[in-house]
């Protein structure tokens, strides 16, 4: 362990340059397209890359980090100076990310999480050597131990596939539906210039069967993307309970290793998605302070298991939270009326408004009422 302020591994220049290039992308593309000609495109491309590398080098040379017996420190900035200090006792989790580039260069990007807000880590150490990482983990008390009683769980290939197939990313479906609605509006607005739309219309299905087919294709696309996303995020998933910490490793292209002190786990969630309920499947998530804004994948304790096995798996990984996994009672049956009534009324109201203002839709808009009551939602149960 060192108390000296040090620079990151020089590989950090690559990551910082890539970030800078992302920021430069829009003006560069405009310059490339606006200039015309191959030489101009190549020239601007070179200028952009050179600028990004220079920015990366400046950022690398102005970033320093250190870990002492009590805190992790990070300073950055050239004109605007910034120094951040995280007491080790406040570290919620240490995430070590090894993407393809990191693996190629033999470094690791470390996110230090505390409970104080922020989307990514409170400190992001762009490029550390594996030895630096080990020192950091040891200082934070989440280092590798030779504990013989470590419990190990891994996600099998078959389970990974099932997890992907049943992921059913609702947000993707919404995006696809919104896109389709937008397209529909464009095409069916009668008073727009007809010629331009005629070409577009020819691309669209002419009958109901065609529309159903198109919708099915879009859904299949969204579903396929969901499967792909799950495979990339959870490939090679393992979770280890090792003394008083959880260690989670996952990811196909980018390997992410998170170390979470068990004392930092606020709650455990059992999430049963729409597509998983019929098969009695569920996913386990942990709630850690400050990670609420992170993507769900970062909060996953186990991506897929049988609902019936939740108690047993928790008993092995997190016996502290296993007790509450059983004995949850559903809401009383007569509550169903109330659950259905409000969305139905809301849907009817919206439908009536739709009928009144968009006359073309007609009374069909009222169908929103019953539809509102059927809004599918993942069954989620939480226990602290």
């Amino acid at each position, binding site marked *: 362990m060192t108390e000296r302020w040090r620079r990151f591994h020089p590989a950090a220049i690559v990551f910082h340059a890539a970030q800078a290039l992302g920021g430069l992308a829009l003006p560069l593309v405009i310059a490339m397209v606006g200039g015309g000609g191959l030489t101009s495109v190549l020239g601007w491309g070179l200028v952009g890359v050179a600028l990004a590398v220079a920015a990366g080098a400046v950022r690398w040379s102005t970033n320093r980090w250190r870990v002492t017996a009590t*805190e992790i420190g990070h300073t950055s900035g050239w004109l605007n100076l910034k*120094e*951040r*200090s995280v*007491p080790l*006792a406040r570290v919620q989790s240490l995430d070590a990310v090894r993407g393809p580039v990191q693996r190629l260069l033999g470094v690791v990007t470390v996110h230090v999480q505390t*409970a*104080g*807000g922020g989307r990514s880590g*409170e400190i992001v150490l762009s490029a550390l050597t594996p030895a630096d990482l080990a020192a950091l983990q040891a200082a934070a008390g989440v280092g590798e131990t030779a504990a013989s009683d470590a419990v190990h769980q891994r996600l099998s290939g078959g389970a990974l596939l099932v997890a992907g197939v049943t992921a059913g990313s609702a947000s993707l479906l919404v995006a696809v539906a919104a896109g389709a609605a937008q397209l529909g509006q464009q095409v069916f607005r009668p008073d727009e210039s007809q010629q331009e739309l005629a070409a577009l219309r020819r691309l669209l299905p002419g009958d109901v069967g065609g529309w159903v087919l198109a919708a099915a294709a879009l859904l299949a696309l969204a579903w396929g993307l969901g499967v792909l996303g799950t495979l990339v995020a959870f490939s090679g998933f393992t979770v280890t309970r090792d003394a008083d910490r959880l260690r989670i490793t996952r990811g196909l292209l980018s390997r992410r290793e998170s170390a979470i002190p068990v004392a930092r786990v606020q709650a455990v969630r059992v999430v049963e998605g729409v597509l998983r309920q019929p098969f009695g499947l569920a996913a386990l998530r942990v709630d850690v302070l400050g990670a609420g804004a992170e993507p769900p994948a970062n909060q996953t304790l186990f991506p897929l298991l049988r609902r019936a096995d939740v108690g047993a798996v928790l008993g092995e990984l997190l016996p502290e939270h296993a007790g509450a996994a059983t004995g949850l009672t559903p809401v009383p049956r007569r509550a169903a009326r109330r659950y259905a009534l409000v969305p139905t009324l809301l849907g009817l109201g919206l439908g009536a408004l739709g009928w009144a203002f968009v006359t073309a839709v007609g009374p069909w808009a009222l169908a929103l009422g019953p539809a509102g009551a059927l809004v599918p939602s993942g069954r989620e149960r939480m226990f602290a």
Partner: protein
Amino acid sequence: MTRDSGSDPAPPADRLDRGVVWLWRLQALIGAVVALVAGRALAGALHGAPAVLVTIVPPVVGLLAAVVWPELRWRRWRIEVREAELDVRHGAFTVRRTLVPMRRVQHVDSSADVLERLFGLATVTVHTAGGAIGLPGLRDARAGRLARRIAELARVDD
């Protein structure tokens, strides 16, 4: 964590460094110049009284903000670091008193932008799980000491 200071007899002990008054004045002046330029540009599109108003009002408000407001603000700003808590009082018009228990402090930043560096000043920001409070106008060395001390006091396990 915020409570009214009116009934509290003993405000926190320490003031900000005096230089911050001039930093705030400079910031207000920059704002006034921007407002003046924007007002002139807008006045070109208007006629009569509105044109005069958009030309005159922004810089006048800006100048007032540069002369009176920084002084008021500086008088109100008080900080005290105690073993168990950080005690802050601030606000020129609405007075806020904030107590942050040290066991709830997550991490500490100290930062200095270009203008602050011109005056040799820095801002210390104390983050809790629920938000953050910034302590501006601290001389470099003092900001460093303060950040270190708060980080040290925050080390207790929660």
